[in-house]
């Protein structure tokens, strides 16, 4: 009898639709609280301290941030991250869009090509880094191919500060172009064919069609891609760690690598936390800008 009462009580509580909804969300929420929000808050707190893990924390307020903006190493990593993200993203957008446009043309076998272009993006970035490190060697595939065809002497792809960042960029574009191509394709396929027909009737050539019809209608897709690709570039880590360790010099020391180095090698926890806050802020601001820029054009 008592059990029945409890059961009824349970039922009454659980039938509150709102509570049920909350209960469904609860496990996930608890998870994020423990493994995400608490670490973030802790990290924010650390960024206001000077701490090398072994002595006690010393509160310095905005001291770390002020120091950072006067530190040439940090400014360098800022610059490198900027160059890398900008360069890689631009190349990525152009390449993946071109691929998508090509695939979208009404030719046979495009499905097959699509598979080939997409394949690299399912490979682990670690695997890709390793294979490309091998190919970039002085006697590796790329140099020997260039020698055979163009008779150029070997280029120090990964050991010269002139080429290192470019080498990583090329590898990243190779790896991710297929992924963004797929998304562009979906966007392209959403454009009604009638629009193209109308344009043809009006006598537009392919360039006009591209600029006046395709681009504007791809804006929502492009918004998504631009945000995701910028985020991905800003967070890239494995290639910089394994291929060049931030070198030669600091020509490939992106912010993620600097944070890692400051935390684990120099044990400057407060500083590393401050740097990661700045990285986070950059990503946040970028997303806001991108959303705002595209907001007027996008309808849901």
């Amino acid at each position, binding site marked *: 009898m008592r059990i029945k009462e409890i059961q009824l009580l349970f039922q009454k509580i659980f039938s509150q639709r709102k509570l049920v909804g909350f209960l469904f969300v609860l496990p996930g929420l608890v998870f994020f609280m423990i493994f995400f929000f608490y670490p973030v808050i802790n990290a924010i707190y650390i960024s206001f301290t000077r701490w090398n893990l072994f002595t006690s924390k010393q509160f310095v307020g905005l001291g770390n941030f002020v120091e950072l903006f006067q530190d040439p190493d940090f400014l360098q990593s800022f610059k490198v991250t900027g160059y890398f993200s900008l360069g890689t993203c631009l190349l990525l957008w152009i390449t993946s869009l071109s691929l998508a446009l*090509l695939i979208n043309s009404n030719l046979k076998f495009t499905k097959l090509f699509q598979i080939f272009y997409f394949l690299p993006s399912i490979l682990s970035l670690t695997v890709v880094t390793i294979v490309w490190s091998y190919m970039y*060697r002085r006697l590796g595939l790329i140099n020997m191919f260039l020698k055979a065809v163009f008779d150029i002497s070997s280029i120090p792809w990964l050991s010269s500060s002139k080429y290192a960042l470019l080498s990583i960029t090329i590898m990243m574009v190779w790896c991710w172009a297929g992924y963004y191509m797929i998304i562009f394709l979906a966007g392209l396929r959403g454009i009604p064919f009638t629009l193209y027909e109308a344009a043809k009737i009006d006598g537009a050539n392919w360039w006009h069609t591209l600029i006046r019809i395709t681009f504007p209608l791809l804006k929502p897709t492009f918004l998504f891609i631009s945000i995701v690709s910028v985020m991905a570039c800003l967070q890239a880590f494995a290639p910089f760690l394994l291929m060049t360790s931030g070198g030669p010099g600091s020509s490939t020391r992106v912010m993620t690598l600097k944070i890692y180095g400051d935390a684990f090698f120099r044990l400057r926890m407060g500083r590393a936390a401050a740097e990661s806050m700045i990285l986070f802020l950059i990503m946040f601001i970028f997303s806001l800008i991108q959303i705002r820029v595209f907001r007027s054009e996008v309808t849901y």
Partner: protein
Amino acid sequence: MIERALLEKIAVYLVLIILGIIFTIPVFWMFSSSFKSLENTLTVSIKWLPEKLHFENYTEIWGAEQFKTYFSNSLVVAITVTFATIFLASLTGYGLSKFDFPGRQVIFLFILSTMMVPFQVIAIPLYIIVRYFGWIDTYQGLIIPGALSGFGVFFMKQYIQTISNEFIDVARIDGCSEFGIFWRIILPLSKPALAALGILTFLGSWNNLLWPLIVIQSEGLKTLPLGLAKIMQSEYGVRYNVLMSGAVIASAPMIVAFLIFQRRITKGITLGGLKG
């Protein structure tokens, strides 16, 4: 007129083919080099194919270099993380999309914001928490922090939102329990999204380098990316033929899964892309 169209067609095909070659050569090179002898890994004249199939590269990396351990670890971790993620993500996504309770929007935004925070920000505090639970150098430490992602919740919420409320209402009238509705109606209806999310999650877990690098110390628990990094960083000369066979082993499951499921995968990506 006709000639022009034909020329255009040929040009496009040519470009497609050249690009196709560029995109596949590195993968081909990886496979080919994995069978070569050490002398032939770096030669001035390009040796496209190995002169003889050196299977011993594979036996060496599987046994002596312990890739069989790394492989099974990667598998255990990836599968567990995948199932945990698709279950929790759909649970949370369902709650967020089909119920209205105070704070719903805020919670959703919070979870969404997790996608924007780079891992470096939480790496050390996360490590300290994991250490507090006694999970350093354990499977739990490797799996549990990755058991749910903001992207997963976002993805499932968007998809479940498109499921007609009629199904749910009918089920409620029939007296089905709330959890029963989730388990018997929402989940089966979300199969395409679950599959896509599952594959993407599996991919992410299989390829993850940074967190295992921090958490795992003993050989017996290392995952494939760690094994590859280990060979890359050996203090003595790197043996590229053996390294390539390791790379093949690390990527083989993904390539196979891709060839089988590629339609699902591309669908999943576009789902995420369009609904975003």
